[in-house]
Protein backbone atom coordinates (compact mmCIF):
# COMPACT_ATOMS: atom_id res chain seq x y z
CA UNK A 1 0.00 0.00 0.00
CA UNK A 2 2.87 2.29 0.94
CA UNK A 3 4.50 1.57 -2.42
CA UNK A 4 1.32 2.35 -4.31
CA UNK A 5 0.91 5.64 -2.43
CA UNK A 6 4.48 6.67 -3.10
CA UNK A 7 4.12 5.68 -6.77
CA UNK A 8 0.97 7.74 -7.05
CA UNK A 9 2.60 10.74 -5.40
CA UNK A 10 5.63 10.39 -7.68
CA UNK A 11 3.52 10.13 -10.82
CA UNK A 12 1.38 13.13 -9.86
CA UNK A 13 4.57 15.07 -9.11
CA UNK A 14 6.19 14.06 -12.39
CA UNK A 15 3.09 14.72 -14.46
CA UNK A 16 2.76 18.21 -12.90
CA UNK A 17 6.34 19.11 -13.65
CA UNK A 18 6.29 17.58 -17.12
CA UNK A 19 3.18 19.69 -17.91
CA UNK A 20 4.93 22.84 -16.69
CA UNK A 21 8.11 21.97 -18.59
CA UNK A 22 6.11 21.09 -21.71
CA UNK A 23 4.22 24.37 -21.46
CA UNK A 24 7.43 26.37 -21.04
CA UNK A 25 8.88 24.51 -24.02
CA UNK A 26 5.79 25.40 -26.04
CA UNK A 27 6.02 29.09 -25.09
CA UNK A 28 9.67 29.02 -26.22
CA UNK A 29 8.65 27.50 -29.56
CA UNK A 30 5.74 29.89 -30.00
CA UNK A 31 7.90 32.89 -29.24
CA UNK A 32 10.24 31.70 -32.02
CA UNK A 33 7.34 31.35 -34.47
CA UNK A 34 7.61 27.53 -34.39
CA UNK A 35 4.85 24.94 -34.39
CA UNK A 36 4.21 22.88 -31.27
CA UNK A 37 2.01 20.20 -32.82
CA UNK A 38 -0.74 20.86 -30.28
CA UNK A 39 -4.19 19.59 -31.21
CA UNK A 40 -7.04 22.09 -31.62
CA UNK A 41 -8.54 23.24 -28.32
CA UNK A 42 -11.88 22.61 -26.69
CA UNK A 43 -15.01 23.96 -28.37
CA UNK A 44 -17.96 24.97 -26.19
CA UNK A 45 -21.34 24.12 -27.76
CA UNK A 46 -23.64 27.12 -27.87
CA UNK A 47 -26.93 25.66 -29.01
CA UNK A 48 -27.74 23.75 -25.85
CA UNK A 49 -30.45 23.21 -23.26
CA UNK A 50 -28.22 25.13 -20.85
CA UNK A 51 -28.25 28.20 -23.12
CA UNK A 52 -32.02 27.88 -23.56
CA UNK A 53 -32.51 27.71 -19.81
CA UNK A 54 -30.36 30.79 -19.22
CA UNK A 55 -32.45 32.64 -21.80
CA UNK A 56 -35.67 31.39 -20.24
CA UNK A 57 -34.81 31.61 -16.54
CA UNK A 58 -32.27 34.40 -16.13
CA UNK A 59 -32.72 37.03 -18.83
CA UNK A 60 -36.36 37.86 -17.99
CA UNK A 61 -35.40 38.46 -14.34
CA UNK A 62 -32.83 41.17 -15.05
CA UNK A 63 -34.12 44.64 -14.27
CA UNK A 64 -32.67 47.54 -16.23
CA UNK A 65 -33.59 51.10 -17.20
CA UNK A 66 -36.30 51.50 -19.89
CA UNK A 67 -35.15 51.02 -23.47
CA UNK A 68 -32.37 48.56 -22.64
CA UNK A 69 -32.37 44.91 -23.65
CA UNK A 70 -30.36 41.95 -22.36
CA UNK A 71 -29.49 38.97 -24.53
CA UNK A 72 -27.19 35.98 -24.28
CA UNK A 73 -23.93 36.62 -26.17
CA UNK A 74 -22.09 33.40 -25.38
CA UNK A 75 -21.82 30.40 -23.10
CA UNK A 76 -18.30 30.63 -21.66
CA UNK A 77 -17.35 28.44 -18.68
CA UNK A 78 -15.87 30.36 -15.73
CA UNK A 79 -16.06 33.66 -17.65
CA UNK A 80 -14.07 36.38 -15.90
CA UNK A 81 -12.41 39.46 -17.41
CA UNK A 82 -12.83 40.24 -21.09
CA UNK A 83 -10.95 41.93 -23.91
CA UNK A 84 -12.70 42.97 -27.10
CA UNK A 85 -10.85 42.72 -30.44
CA UNK A 86 -10.35 45.67 -32.76
CA UNK A 87 -10.96 44.31 -36.25
CA UNK A 88 -13.03 41.24 -35.55
CA UNK A 89 -16.08 40.49 -33.47
CA UNK A 90 -14.00 38.41 -31.10
CA UNK A 91 -13.90 38.63 -27.33
CA UNK A 92 -11.18 36.97 -25.29
CA UNK A 93 -12.24 35.83 -21.87
CA UNK A 94 -9.95 35.02 -18.96
CA UNK A 95 -10.67 32.54 -16.20
CA UNK A 96 -9.40 31.82 -12.72
CA UNK A 97 -8.51 28.32 -13.88
CA UNK A 98 -6.16 27.36 -16.72
CA UNK A 99 -7.98 28.38 -19.87
CA UNK A 100 -8.62 31.48 -21.93
CA UNK A 101 -11.60 31.43 -24.28
CA UNK A 102 -12.32 33.26 -27.49
CA UNK A 103 -15.91 33.98 -28.45
CA UNK A 104 -16.52 35.13 -32.02
CA UNK A 105 -19.67 36.43 -33.64
CA UNK A 106 -18.91 35.26 -37.17
CA UNK A 107 -22.19 36.19 -38.83
CA UNK A 108 -22.60 39.57 -37.16
CA UNK A 109 -25.90 38.84 -35.43
CA UNK A 110 -24.58 39.93 -32.01
CA UNK A 111 -24.41 36.38 -30.72
CA UNK A 112 -21.16 34.41 -30.57
CA UNK A 113 -21.24 31.53 -33.04
CA UNK A 114 -18.08 29.89 -31.77
CA UNK A 115 -16.52 29.72 -28.33
CA UNK A 116 -13.16 27.99 -28.39
CA UNK A 117 -10.13 27.53 -26.22
CA UNK A 118 -7.58 30.22 -27.05
CA UNK A 119 -3.96 29.15 -27.53
CA UNK A 120 -4.28 25.55 -26.28
CA UNK A 121 -0.53 25.11 -26.75
CA UNK A 122 0.01 27.28 -23.66
CA UNK A 123 -0.73 25.98 -20.18
CA UNK A 124 -2.08 28.99 -18.36
CA UNK A 125 -2.06 29.56 -14.62
CA UNK A 126 -5.01 31.71 -13.44
CA UNK A 127 -5.16 33.73 -16.67
CA UNK A 128 -7.76 36.15 -15.35
CA UNK A 129 -6.41 39.36 -16.87
CA UNK A 130 -6.88 39.85 -20.59
CA UNK A 131 -6.50 43.16 -22.36
CA UNK A 132 -6.28 44.26 -25.96
CA UNK A 133 -4.44 47.32 -27.20
CA UNK A 134 -5.64 49.75 -29.85
CA UNK A 135 -2.72 48.67 -32.03
CA UNK A 136 -3.86 45.06 -32.03
CA UNK A 137 -1.93 43.23 -29.30
CA UNK A 138 -3.45 40.87 -26.78
CA UNK A 139 -1.93 40.59 -23.30
CA UNK A 140 -2.70 37.96 -20.71
CA UNK A 141 -1.78 38.58 -17.08
CA UNK A 142 -1.60 35.33 -15.14
CA UNK A 143 -0.89 34.69 -11.49
CA UNK A 144 2.85 35.15 -12.02
CA UNK A 145 3.57 35.80 -15.70
CA UNK A 146 2.52 38.22 -18.43
CA UNK A 147 2.28 36.98 -22.02
CA UNK A 148 2.08 39.00 -25.21
CA UNK A 149 0.13 37.64 -28.19
CA UNK A 150 1.01 39.81 -31.15
CA UNK A 151 -1.63 39.89 -33.87
CA UNK A 152 -3.86 37.58 -31.87
CA UNK A 153 -6.77 38.51 -34.12
CA UNK A 154 -5.04 36.73 -37.01
CA UNK A 155 -3.30 33.82 -35.28
CA UNK A 156 -6.25 32.96 -33.05
CA UNK A 157 -7.73 30.26 -35.30
CA UNK A 158 -4.65 28.07 -34.83
CA UNK A 159 -3.70 26.16 -31.66
CA UNK A 160 -0.23 27.65 -32.17
CA UNK A 161 -0.68 31.32 -31.44
CA UNK A 162 2.56 33.29 -31.23
CA UNK A 163 3.15 33.94 -27.51
CA UNK A 164 6.02 35.92 -26.06
CA UNK A 165 6.61 36.43 -22.34
CA UNK A 166 6.87 40.07 -21.34
CA UNK A 167 7.31 39.01 -17.72
CA UNK A 168 8.59 35.43 -17.40
CA UNK A 169 7.04 32.86 -15.09
CA UNK A 170 7.88 33.86 -11.52
CA UNK A 171 8.81 37.42 -12.42
CA UNK A 172 5.64 39.28 -11.53
CA UNK A 173 5.89 38.58 -7.79
CA UNK A 174 8.35 36.52 -5.74
CA UNK A 175 7.07 32.91 -6.10
CA UNK A 176 6.93 32.51 -2.30
CA UNK A 177 4.22 35.21 -2.27
CA UNK A 178 1.99 33.33 -4.72
CA UNK A 179 -1.50 32.43 -3.57
CA UNK A 180 -4.74 31.31 -5.16
CA UNK A 181 -6.91 33.91 -3.46
CA UNK A 182 -6.41 37.55 -4.38
CA UNK A 183 -4.53 36.52 -7.51
CA UNK A 184 -6.94 37.50 -10.26
CA UNK A 185 -4.85 40.03 -12.18
CA UNK A 186 -6.32 42.64 -14.48
CA UNK A 187 -4.50 44.65 -17.11
CA UNK A 188 -4.99 47.73 -19.26
CA UNK A 189 -2.89 49.79 -21.64
CA UNK A 190 -2.49 53.48 -20.81
CA UNK A 191 -2.60 55.50 -24.03
CA UNK A 192 -0.62 58.31 -22.42
CA UNK A 193 2.56 56.30 -21.82
CA UNK A 194 1.79 53.22 -23.97
CA UNK A 195 2.57 50.96 -20.99
CA UNK A 196 0.78 47.95 -19.58
CA UNK A 197 -0.74 48.36 -16.10
CA UNK A 198 -1.29 45.25 -13.98
CA UNK A 199 -2.98 45.12 -10.57
CA UNK A 200 -1.62 42.80 -7.90
CA UNK A 201 -3.73 41.86 -4.90
CA UNK A 202 -1.95 41.10 -1.65
CA UNK A 203 -2.38 37.54 -0.37
CA UNK A 204 -3.80 38.22 3.10
CA UNK A 205 -7.04 39.43 4.57
CA UNK A 206 -4.91 42.16 6.14
CA UNK A 207 -1.17 42.04 5.48
CA UNK A 208 1.04 42.03 8.56
CA UNK A 209 3.61 44.73 9.35
CA UNK A 210 6.43 42.34 8.43
CA UNK A 211 5.35 42.58 4.80
CA UNK A 212 6.14 46.27 4.50
CA UNK A 213 7.98 48.00 2.87
CA UNK A 214 8.75 44.91 0.72
CA UNK A 215 5.21 44.75 -0.72
CA UNK A 216 5.25 48.45 -1.58
CA UNK A 217 8.55 48.04 -3.40
CA UNK A 218 7.34 45.12 -5.54
CA UNK A 219 3.83 46.50 -5.98
CA UNK A 220 2.02 43.68 -4.16
CA UNK A 221 -1.18 45.28 -2.94
CA UNK A 222 -0.73 47.81 -5.70
CA UNK A 223 -0.59 48.46 -9.41
CA UNK A 224 2.54 48.29 -11.55
CA UNK A 225 3.31 49.42 -15.08
CA UNK A 226 5.93 48.31 -17.58
CA UNK A 227 6.80 48.36 -21.26
CA UNK A 228 4.58 46.07 -23.24
CA UNK A 229 7.12 44.92 -25.81
CA UNK A 230 10.28 42.87 -25.27
CA UNK A 231 13.37 44.77 -24.24
CA UNK A 232 13.90 46.98 -21.21
CA UNK A 233 10.95 46.30 -18.90
CA UNK A 234 11.17 49.60 -17.02
CA UNK A 235 8.88 48.28 -14.31
CA UNK A 236 7.47 50.83 -11.85
CA UNK A 237 4.97 50.82 -9.02
CA UNK A 238 2.21 53.38 -9.60
CA UNK A 239 -0.09 52.72 -6.65
CA UNK A 240 0.34 51.18 -3.17
CA UNK A 241 -1.97 50.49 -0.24
CA UNK A 242 -4.53 48.48 -2.19
CA UNK A 243 -6.00 45.32 -0.75
CA UNK A 244 -7.26 43.41 -3.77
CA UNK A 245 -8.06 45.40 -6.86
CA UNK A 246 -9.69 43.38 -9.65
CA UNK A 247 -10.75 46.08 -12.05
CA UNK A 248 -9.16 49.14 -13.54
CA UNK A 249 -9.57 51.48 -16.50
CA UNK A 250 -8.36 54.84 -17.76
CA UNK A 251 -10.79 57.72 -18.12
CA UNK A 252 -10.55 58.50 -21.84
CA UNK A 253 -11.40 62.17 -21.15
CA UNK A 254 -8.57 63.06 -18.78
CA UNK A 255 -6.38 59.94 -18.75
CA UNK A 256 -6.80 59.29 -15.02
CA UNK A 257 -6.50 55.74 -13.70
CA UNK A 258 -9.54 54.40 -11.84
CA UNK A 259 -9.80 51.10 -10.02
CA UNK A 260 -12.06 49.08 -7.77
CA UNK A 261 -10.73 47.64 -4.52
CA UNK A 262 -12.20 44.82 -2.44
CA UNK A 263 -11.98 45.51 1.24
CA UNK A 264 -11.37 43.75 4.52
CA UNK A 265 -13.33 40.75 5.83
CA UNK A 266 -14.18 39.85 9.40
CA UNK A 267 -15.14 43.30 10.66
CA UNK A 268 -18.93 43.12 10.35
CA UNK A 269 -21.77 42.46 7.94
CA UNK A 270 -22.13 46.09 6.94
CA UNK A 271 -18.57 47.33 7.27
CA UNK A 272 -16.11 48.31 5.84
CA UNK A 273 -17.19 49.77 2.49
CA UNK A 274 -15.74 48.67 -0.84
CA UNK A 275 -14.10 51.30 -3.00
CA UNK A 276 -13.90 52.86 -6.41
CA UNK A 277 -10.75 54.95 -6.55
CA UNK A 278 -9.32 57.56 -8.85
CA UNK A 279 -5.53 57.76 -8.79
CA UNK A 280 -4.54 61.16 -7.38
CA UNK A 281 -1.37 60.71 -9.43
CA UNK A 282 0.74 57.79 -10.62
CA UNK A 283 3.63 57.05 -8.33
CA UNK A 284 5.18 54.57 -5.96
CA UNK A 285 4.36 56.70 -2.92
CA UNK A 286 0.67 57.30 -3.64
CA UNK A 287 -1.13 55.33 -0.95
CA UNK A 288 -4.73 54.10 -0.89
CA UNK A 289 -5.15 53.01 2.71
CA UNK A 290 -4.31 49.32 3.19
CA UNK A 291 -3.45 47.90 5.72
CA UNK A 292 -4.34 50.77 8.09
CA UNK A 293 -7.77 51.41 6.58
CA UNK A 294 -10.11 48.52 5.92
CA UNK A 295 -12.15 50.43 3.34
CA UNK A 296 -13.14 54.12 3.26
CA UNK A 297 -12.13 55.73 6.55
CA UNK A 298 -12.74 52.60 8.66
CA UNK A 299 -9.57 51.61 10.49
CA UNK A 300 -8.71 47.89 10.44
CA UNK A 301 -8.86 46.05 13.77
CA UNK A 302 -5.35 44.78 13.05
CA UNK A 303 -3.84 48.30 13.01
CA UNK A 304 -6.37 50.21 15.11
CA UNK A 305 -4.76 52.76 17.41
CA UNK A 306 -1.42 52.57 15.61
CA UNK A 307 0.07 55.69 14.08
CA UNK A 308 0.01 55.63 10.32
CA UNK A 309 3.49 56.30 8.90
CA UNK A 310 3.92 59.87 7.66
CA UNK A 311 5.05 58.63 4.24
CA UNK A 312 1.56 57.18 3.90
CA UNK A 313 -0.53 59.98 5.39
CA UNK A 314 1.28 62.59 3.29
CA UNK A 315 0.33 60.69 0.14
CA UNK A 316 -3.09 59.33 1.08
CA UNK A 317 -5.55 59.26 -1.80
CA UNK A 318 -9.12 58.69 -0.60
CA UNK A 319 -11.70 56.73 -2.55
CA UNK A 320 -14.09 58.49 -4.90
CA UNK A 321 -16.95 56.11 -4.15
CA UNK A 322 -17.61 54.02 -1.06
CA UNK A 323 -19.65 51.03 -2.17
CA UNK A 324 -21.69 48.74 0.07
CA UNK A 325 -19.66 46.39 2.25
CA UNK A 326 -18.73 42.97 0.85
CA UNK A 327 -20.33 43.55 -2.55
CA UNK A 328 -17.03 42.60 -4.28
CA UNK A 329 -16.66 45.37 -6.85
CA UNK A 330 -14.66 43.85 -9.71
CA UNK A 331 -14.33 44.77 -13.40
CA UNK A 332 -14.99 48.29 -14.63
CA UNK A 333 -14.96 50.37 -17.83
CA UNK A 334 -15.68 53.86 -19.09
CA UNK A 335 -18.47 54.03 -21.60
CA UNK A 336 -17.19 55.61 -24.83
CA UNK A 337 -19.93 54.43 -27.18
CA UNK A 338 -22.79 56.36 -28.70
CA UNK A 339 -25.51 53.72 -28.53
CA UNK A 340 -26.56 54.44 -24.92
CA UNK A 341 -28.39 57.65 -23.96
CA UNK A 342 -26.23 60.70 -23.26
CA UNK A 343 -26.45 60.39 -19.48
CA UNK A 344 -24.26 57.27 -19.72
CA UNK A 345 -21.56 58.84 -21.88
CA UNK A 346 -18.20 58.59 -20.10
CA UNK A 347 -19.89 57.02 -17.07
CA UNK A 348 -18.24 54.07 -15.31
CA UNK A 349 -19.91 50.69 -15.51
CA UNK A 350 -18.69 48.25 -12.87
CA UNK A 351 -19.62 44.75 -11.76
CA UNK A 352 -20.48 43.72 -8.23
CA UNK A 353 -19.74 40.02 -7.96
CA UNK A 354 -21.67 39.61 -4.73
CA UNK A 355 -20.93 38.76 -1.15
CA UNK A 356 -19.79 35.57 0.46
CA UNK A 357 -19.16 37.10 3.84
CA UNK A 358 -22.43 38.65 5.01
CA UNK A 359 -25.70 37.35 6.37
CA UNK A 360 -27.64 39.53 3.95
CA UNK A 361 -26.64 38.70 0.37
CA UNK A 362 -25.83 41.70 -1.77
CA UNK A 363 -24.22 42.64 -5.06
CA UNK A 364 -24.70 40.45 -8.15
CA UNK A 365 -25.44 43.53 -10.20
CA UNK A 366 -23.89 46.06 -12.53
CA UNK A 367 -23.48 49.58 -11.20
CA UNK A 368 -23.11 52.88 -13.00
CA UNK A 369 -21.10 55.80 -11.62
CA UNK A 370 -21.54 59.23 -13.18
CA UNK A 371 -18.77 61.81 -13.26
CA UNK A 372 -18.98 65.60 -13.10
CA UNK A 373 -17.22 67.86 -15.55
CA UNK A 374 -14.12 67.87 -13.35
CA UNK A 375 -13.90 64.10 -13.72
CA UNK A 376 -14.99 63.23 -10.18
CA UNK A 377 -17.65 60.72 -9.18
CA UNK A 378 -21.10 62.04 -8.42
CA UNK A 379 -23.89 59.48 -8.33
CA UNK A 380 -23.44 55.70 -8.04
CA UNK A 381 -26.50 53.56 -8.70
CA UNK A 382 -27.57 50.12 -9.92
CA UNK A 383 -27.82 49.69 -13.68
CA UNK A 384 -28.62 45.97 -13.93
CA UNK A 385 -30.07 43.89 -11.11
CA UNK A 386 -31.91 40.62 -10.71
CA UNK A 387 -29.26 37.89 -10.56
CA UNK A 388 -30.19 37.28 -6.94
CA UNK A 389 -33.40 35.37 -6.25
CA UNK A 390 -35.72 36.33 -3.43
CA UNK A 391 -34.51 33.18 -1.67
CA UNK A 392 -31.01 34.67 -1.54
CA UNK A 393 -29.43 32.43 -4.16
CA UNK A 394 -27.36 33.75 -7.03
CA UNK A 395 -28.55 32.98 -10.55
CA UNK A 396 -25.38 34.64 -11.76
CA UNK A 397 -22.45 36.71 -10.53
CA UNK A 398 -21.23 39.51 -12.79
CA UNK A 399 -17.44 39.85 -13.01
CA UNK A 400 -16.55 42.29 -15.75
CA UNK A 401 -18.12 44.85 -18.05
CA UNK A 402 -16.61 45.72 -21.43
CA UNK A 403 -17.84 47.70 -24.39
CA UNK A 404 -18.60 45.78 -27.57
CA UNK A 405 -17.70 47.23 -30.98
CA UNK A 406 -21.22 48.62 -31.60
CA UNK A 407 -21.54 50.49 -28.32
CA UNK A 408 -23.49 47.81 -26.51
CA UNK A 409 -21.84 46.38 -23.39
CA UNK A 410 -20.89 42.83 -22.47
CA UNK A 411 -21.19 41.49 -18.92
CA UNK A 412 -19.37 38.31 -17.91
CA UNK A 413 -20.78 35.96 -15.28
CA UNK A 414 -18.58 33.27 -13.76
CA UNK A 415 -21.39 31.54 -11.91
CA UNK A 416 -23.66 30.83 -14.87
CA UNK A 417 -20.61 30.74 -17.17
CA UNK A 418 -22.02 33.10 -19.76
CA UNK A 419 -21.62 36.53 -21.30
CA UNK A 420 -24.62 38.81 -21.63
CA UNK A 421 -24.97 41.65 -24.12
CA UNK A 422 -26.80 44.82 -23.09
CA UNK A 423 -28.02 47.03 -25.91
CA UNK A 424 -30.14 50.15 -26.04
CA UNK A 425 -33.10 50.09 -28.35
CA UNK A 426 -34.86 53.24 -27.13
Amino acid at each position, binding site marked *: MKKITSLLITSVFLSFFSTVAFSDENVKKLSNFQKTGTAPGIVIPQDTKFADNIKKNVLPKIKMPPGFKISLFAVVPDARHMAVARNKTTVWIGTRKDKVWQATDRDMDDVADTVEQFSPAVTFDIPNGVCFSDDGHLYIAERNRVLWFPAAEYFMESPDTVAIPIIDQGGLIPPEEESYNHTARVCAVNKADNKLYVSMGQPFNVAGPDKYPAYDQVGIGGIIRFNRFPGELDREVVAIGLRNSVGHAFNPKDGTLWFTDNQVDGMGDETPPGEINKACKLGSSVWYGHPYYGGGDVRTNEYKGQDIPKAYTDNYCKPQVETIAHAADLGMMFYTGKQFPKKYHNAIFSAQHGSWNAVKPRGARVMVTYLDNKGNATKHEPFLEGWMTEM*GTYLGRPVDVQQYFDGSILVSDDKAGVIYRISYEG
Partner: protein
Amino acid sequence: MKKILLLVTFMFLSAFAANAASEGEQKICSGLANWTEDGDFKQVRESKCMTEEEYNAYLSAPDYLCQYYQKSIWKESERAYGKKQYKYTQADLDKIKVLKDEGKALCDAGNLKEGEAKLVEAIKIISHTRMN
Protein backbone atom coordinates in the same frame (compact mmCIF):
# COMPACT_ATOMS: atom_id res chain seq x y z
CA MET B 1 -71.82 59.94 -4.64
CA LYS B 2 -71.00 59.64 -0.95
CA LYS B 3 -71.08 55.84 -1.25
CA ILE B 4 -68.69 55.92 -4.23
CA LEU B 5 -66.30 58.19 -2.34
CA LEU B 6 -66.41 55.85 0.65
CA LEU B 7 -65.79 52.86 -1.58
CA VAL B 8 -62.82 54.54 -3.30
CA THR B 9 -61.36 55.55 0.09
CA PHE B 10 -61.84 52.01 1.38
CA MET B 11 -60.15 50.50 -1.69
CA PHE B 12 -57.25 52.97 -1.41
CA LEU B 13 -56.74 52.21 2.30
CA SER B 14 -56.94 48.44 1.68
CA ALA B 15 -54.37 48.63 -1.10
CA PHE B 16 -52.09 50.80 1.07
CA ALA B 17 -52.39 48.39 4.01
CA ALA B 18 -51.71 45.36 1.82
CA ASN B 19 -48.65 47.04 0.34
CA ALA B 20 -47.35 48.06 3.76
CA ALA B 21 -47.88 44.54 5.06
CA SER B 22 -46.06 42.96 2.15
CA GLU B 23 -43.17 45.42 2.60
CA GLY B 24 -43.08 44.61 6.29
CA GLU B 25 -42.88 40.94 5.47
CA GLN B 26 -40.02 41.34 3.02
CA LYS B 27 -37.55 38.63 3.83
CA ILE B 28 -33.79 38.55 3.77
CA CYS B 29 -32.80 35.10 2.63
CA SER B 30 -29.54 33.34 2.08
CA GLY B 31 -29.02 29.98 0.41
CA LEU B 32 -27.00 28.24 -2.25
CA ALA B 33 -28.04 26.96 -5.64
CA ASN B 34 -25.93 26.09 -8.66
CA TRP B 35 -26.47 25.54 -12.36
CA THR B 36 -26.12 21.97 -13.57
CA GLU B 37 -24.56 21.20 -16.96
CA ASP B 38 -28.07 20.78 -18.36
CA GLY B 39 -29.07 24.21 -17.20
CA ASP B 40 -31.15 23.27 -14.19
CA PHE B 41 -30.85 25.54 -11.20
CA LYS B 42 -30.38 23.13 -8.32
CA GLN B 43 -30.65 24.08 -4.65
CA VAL B 44 -27.51 22.97 -2.80
CA ARG B 45 -28.22 24.49 0.62
CA GLU B 46 -31.70 25.38 1.81
CA SER B 47 -32.32 29.10 2.15
CA LYS B 48 -32.65 30.57 5.61
CA CYS B 49 -34.75 33.69 5.89
CA MET B 50 -35.30 36.49 8.37
CA THR B 51 -37.34 39.66 8.27
CA GLU B 52 -35.73 43.08 7.80
CA GLU B 53 -36.72 43.80 11.38
CA GLU B 54 -34.96 40.66 12.60
CA TYR B 55 -31.88 41.58 10.57
CA ASN B 56 -31.74 45.06 12.09
CA ALA B 57 -32.18 43.57 15.55
CA TYR B 58 -29.30 41.17 14.82
CA LEU B 59 -27.07 44.07 13.73
CA SER B 60 -27.89 46.26 16.71
CA ALA B 61 -27.78 43.58 19.41
CA PRO B 62 -25.29 44.47 22.16
CA ASP B 63 -23.45 41.19 21.60
CA TYR B 64 -23.48 41.52 17.79
CA LEU B 65 -19.69 41.75 17.47
CA CYS B 66 -19.18 38.89 19.92
CA GLN B 67 -21.41 36.70 17.78
CA TYR B 68 -20.10 37.99 14.46
CA TYR B 69 -16.43 37.50 15.37
CA GLN B 70 -17.05 33.98 16.66
CA LYS B 71 -18.81 33.04 13.46
CA SER B 72 -16.08 34.65 11.39
CA ILE B 73 -13.38 32.69 13.25
CA TRP B 74 -15.31 29.47 12.75
CA LYS B 75 -15.74 30.17 9.03
CA GLU B 76 -12.07 30.95 8.46
CA SER B 77 -10.25 28.57 10.77
CA GLU B 78 -12.54 25.69 11.79
CA ARG B 79 -14.84 25.05 8.85
CA ALA B 80 -13.02 22.74 6.40
CA TYR B 81 -13.48 25.08 3.43
CA GLY B 82 -12.22 28.11 5.32
CA LYS B 83 -9.27 26.29 6.82
CA LYS B 84 -8.14 25.21 3.35
CA GLN B 85 -7.87 28.82 2.24
CA TYR B 86 -4.97 29.70 4.55
CA LYS B 87 -1.44 28.44 5.17
CA TYR B 88 -2.06 27.78 8.88
CA THR B 89 0.38 25.98 11.12
CA GLN B 90 -1.09 23.80 13.84
CA ALA B 91 0.31 26.29 16.37
CA ASP B 92 -1.69 29.09 14.69
CA LEU B 93 -4.87 27.02 14.82
CA ASP B 94 -4.29 26.14 18.47
CA LYS B 95 -3.76 29.80 19.40
CA ILE B 96 -6.85 30.86 17.49
CA LYS B 97 -8.93 28.21 19.25
CA VAL B 98 -7.73 29.24 22.72
CA LEU B 99 -8.45 32.92 22.02
CA LYS B 100 -11.86 32.08 20.59
CA ASP B 101 -12.78 30.00 23.63
CA GLU B 102 -11.59 32.71 26.01
CA GLY B 103 -13.44 35.38 24.02
CA LYS B 104 -16.62 33.32 23.99
CA ALA B 105 -16.46 32.75 27.74
CA LEU B 106 -16.07 36.49 28.37
CA CYS B 107 -18.90 37.33 25.96
CA ASP B 108 -21.18 34.71 27.56
CA ALA B 109 -20.42 36.20 30.99
CA GLY B 110 -21.51 39.62 29.72
CA ASN B 111 -17.98 41.08 29.46
CA LEU B 112 -18.59 42.02 25.87
CA LYS B 113 -15.70 44.45 25.27
CA GLU B 114 -13.13 42.09 26.78
CA GLY B 115 -14.62 39.21 24.84
CA GLU B 116 -14.52 41.17 21.58
CA ALA B 117 -10.88 42.08 22.24
CA LYS B 118 -9.93 38.40 22.63
CA LEU B 119 -11.82 37.47 19.49
CA VAL B 120 -10.13 40.28 17.55
CA GLU B 121 -6.77 38.85 18.64
CA ALA B 122 -7.80 35.54 17.06
CA ILE B 123 -8.94 37.32 13.88
CA LYS B 124 -5.59 39.13 13.71
CA ILE B 125 -3.82 35.78 13.47
CA ILE B 126 -6.17 34.76 10.66
CA SER B 127 -5.75 38.08 8.87
CA HIS B 128 -1.97 37.88 8.96
CA THR B 129 -1.88 34.27 7.73
CA ARG B 130 -1.13 34.06 4.04
CA MET B 131 -3.87 32.66 1.88
CA ASN B 132 -3.41 29.58 -0.25
